[in-house]
């Protein structure tokens, strides 16, 4: 099986697609763009047999990945079940990085300190980035994880986030979407974030 070409500044964003996670999601997009990186997600990956292959290809095509394990609770609505997609994709990534350590580097983020020790004890010994579920926390942890010379300060990145957040409704409206978690909206947000960051 051919390995897809690795994009050196691409970051696979493995996060819960959850209405209550919109703010951290948007913060990840804006923060990564402002750090000169390109976020990629699984939105838009079609279902069916090949979905898993395509998700793996997307992971493989990215030099880095962020896995946010903040949503480990069971859903509020019946049937009350936990979500396994995020930890599953983390598992795929860990295996990929283990086989090809020079091709991929992964990070784990969480809202709560020490929770990963209980929710995913196999990760014992790793040190997750704790963002407290806040926009400023996400920006701080992105700056901690991705160090770039002359990189913006987290406070500047929060300002950029606000500029994009003010326009998210218009972007969603134009796309005819009622959620930020749609492929077209994601692409428009990345492009809008880049344009707004450049204009600062």
């Amino acid at each position, binding site marked *: 099986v051919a390995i897809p070409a690795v994009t050196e500044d691409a970051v696979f964003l493995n996060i819960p697609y959850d209405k209550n996670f919109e703010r951290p999601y948007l913060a990840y997009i804006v923060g990564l763009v402002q750090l000169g990186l390109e976020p990629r997600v699984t939105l838009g990956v079609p279902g069916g047999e090949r979905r898993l292959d395509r998700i793996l290809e997307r992971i493989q095509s990215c030099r880095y990945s962020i896995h946010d394990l903040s949503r480990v609770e069971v859903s509020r609505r019946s049937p009350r079940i936990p979500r396994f997609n995020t930890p599953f994709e983390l598992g795929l990534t860990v295996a990929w990085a283990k086989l090809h350590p020079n091709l991929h580097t992964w990070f784990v983020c969480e809202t709560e300190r020490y929770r990963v020790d209980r929710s995913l004890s196999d990760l014992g010994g790793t040190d997750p980035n704790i963002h407290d579920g806040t926009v400023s926390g996400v920006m701080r942890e992105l700056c901690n994880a991705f160090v*770039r010379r002359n990189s913006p300060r987290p406070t500047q990145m929060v300002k950029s986030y606000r500029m994009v957040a003010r326009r998210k409704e218009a972007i969603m409206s134009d796309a005819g979407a009622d959620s930020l978690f749609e492929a077209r909206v994601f692409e428009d947000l990345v492009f809008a974030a880049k344009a707004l960051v*450049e204009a600062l």
Partner: protein
Amino acid sequence: MARSVEITTPVPTLDEIGDRLGMSQARRTRVLKIIQNSGTDKFTSRTGGPYVRAGKKVAARKKN
């Protein structure tokens, strides 16, 4: 898992990001119009591209 990595890749331009996302020029212009016309803060695109600035089409900035 890494604690931090140093990023040395060049920062992609707006056009490069648009290309990577597979966005047409028309769609890029549309998104830029949206962000110009929404929000309370002022926005003017600094980068090249046949984008709209202050309601008028402007020529793409020449690359050196």
